[in-house]
């Protein structure tokens, strides 16, 4: 396939996408995090387009357009509304320090490359680098959800995980069937909307977006 000529570009884009994950881990300001989510979505759409161009699969372009509209358009818009509505702009304290976050994230990337190397042999799949990178993104997203306290940060962590899945879908199998892809986008969109509504209500009831408050149900 003609993909060989584009492999450099593809791998460069995947590296940049991983870079945005690290940047999310390193930022405390909510507006910066939303901008990083947009950047990641743009890179993902770019990757989709390049792969579509290289392989001639038309569905890749549709995936790129959907990514642009949903992940770089509507979802950041909703998140911005939530951040503005609740009047919280930055996270004051997290469970894990910045330095520690970077170290752990680095470790997660290494683990992902080692682990997926065991499973898939060399040269399988459309883009060999996509699977380890996507596993790393899923783990980093999970890490964000577990260590960040603000509800909006947890929504962003969910988006990182989901972008990791999209990357896996793109890189391993020429994209998943279009109907399924549409359904997944619909789920993410409604999911972020409902999480946003809940974040509003949490803020109204607790006077804070801090999920530290959400630990009274036990036993």
């Amino acid at each position, binding site marked *: 396939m003609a993909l060989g000529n584009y492999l450099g570009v593809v791998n460069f884009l995947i590296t940049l996408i991983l870079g945005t994950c690290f940047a999310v881990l390193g930022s405390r300001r909510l507006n910066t995090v939303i901008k990083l989510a947009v950047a990641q979505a743009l890179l993902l759409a770019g990757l989709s387009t390049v792969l579509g161009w290289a392989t001639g699969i038309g569905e890749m372009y549709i995936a790129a357009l959907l990514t642009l509209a949903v992940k770089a358009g509507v979802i950041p818009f909703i998140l911005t509304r939530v951040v503005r509505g609740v009047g919280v702009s930055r996270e004051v304290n997290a469970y894990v320090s910045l330095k520690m976050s970077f170290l752990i994230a680095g470790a997660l990337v290494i683990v992902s490359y080692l682990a997926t190397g065991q*499973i*898939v042999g060399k040269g399988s*799949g459309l883009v060999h680098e996509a699977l380890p990178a996507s596993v790393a993104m*899923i783990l980093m997203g*999970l890490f964000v*959800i577990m260590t960040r306290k603000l*509800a909006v940060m*947890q929504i962003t962590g*969910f988006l990182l*995980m*989901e972008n990791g*899945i999209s990357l*896996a*879908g793109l890189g*391993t*199998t*020429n994209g*998943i*069937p279009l*109907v*399924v892809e549409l*359904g*997944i986008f*619909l*789920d993410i969109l*409604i*999911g972020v909307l*409902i*999480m946003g*509504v*809940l974040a509003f*209500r*949490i803020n109204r*009831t*607790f006077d804070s977006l801090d*999920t530290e*408050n*959400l*630990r*009274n*149900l036990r*036993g």
Partner: protein
Amino acid sequence: MNAMPLVLLTLPLLIALLSILTKNQKTLTIINALGGVLLAGAGLSLASAVFRTGPLVWLGGFIYIDALSAFVISIIALVGLTSALYSISYTGRELKEGGIAPRRLHWYYFWFYIFVFTMLAVVMAGNLGIMWVAIEGTTLASALLVGFYEQKGSLEAAWKYIIICTVGIIFALFGTILLHYAAVSVTGEGRSLDWPSLVAQAGNLNPKLLKLAFVFALVGYGTKVGLAPMHTWLPDAHSQAPSPVSAMLSGVLLNCALYGILRFHLIVSKSQGLFSFNLLLIFGLISIAVALPFIIVQHDLKRLLAYSSIEHMGIIAAAIGLGSRLALYGAFLHMLNHALTKSFLFFAAGNVTQHYHTKKIGKIKGAMSVMPVSGTALFLGAFAIGGAPPFGIFTSEFTILSAGFAEGRYGAAGLMLALITLIFAGIVYTAAKVALGAPPGRVKKTQPDKWSLAVLSLSLVPMTLMGVYIPPFVDGILRQVVAVMAGGN
């Protein structure tokens, strides 16, 4: 015949739409009661058509309904109907006492029927990708129902529910993508997530990827089933939701999520031998064991029922893990019995907690003398869910255990027997504390309204009948489901 899946899928959407368009309580009651009956009728007639004539394939394979799907559709139809009717009684009292603002009632019914729609979509999907979309849909549709009261506890429960289940289910999507990866070169681009073609080609798929896909699906969908140790959201959500919703979550939703695992299990077990059986057995046993201490020391009536759901999903998973035809028969009989009994218990407990204005077990006493119907129902239900004869759960647990011993799995079956016995003691002890004794002076004697009475008797009859006599048509249906599970298509 071909229009039936379409009718069943559009009906709940239509009811949801009609509900959101009106704010009048009377009109909402009529829409919901009529709609609930129609929906149950449509579901049961579609299921019986499948039981009579075999699998139904529609829309180029996007909709695939075999005996296993039809069986879960019947459960959705039955418990969906009783929960819808009980909602009338429950929300009626909440409106009177100011628990729910009248202008928000139509949102309750809207999300309720969207929730039913997503669950029907889960079991009707013939494509594993669409099934994932539908299972994630069930979380989204029910999250706002869990948080419906907008109080601190319910918002906490709703947030944990949506975050933990969404994260869990993302792992299931990863598993689905791995399966797609394994299949795409074998089945071709278009068919790569179609369940029947995956089963047919199971032997040709990369075994490593197949096993890995199953592990991710088990962890992901297992989060929604409430399998330990991914169950942490379940007691919160099931106890904080309005009681009719708790009944739907425990009685129906958990089965739909388990259905998702079963579809993967059926593919993987065809080529990978005991791998998926053993994992199901282990996770099932761990779930039963984890539920035990929380049931023994529980202080919240609805959390008690929630932990009991973890136990029973564990029993079903373990029984499927045992894998013999008898164990499978017991597993699906248990699925039906648990759905009926647990929803019955949540209805009774809903009435009791509403009347006492508390869920704390220590503060509820003498429920049987204050509430002769609901209190007695709660007491009987506790015996039923614990597995005492003559109730259905006794029969299904007995079937599963004897299947385990007959297979020579003494360790697994013995452990299950010991845990079930201890849990029985814990539940009955708590129920006795709640139901018997002298009621606190502030609580007045009351009789249930006609909706509660109807719903409680509607559930009590089958859940008791199944303990003494399994009607031939139920037996035939269960045998068909077992044939799907044992044969693969």
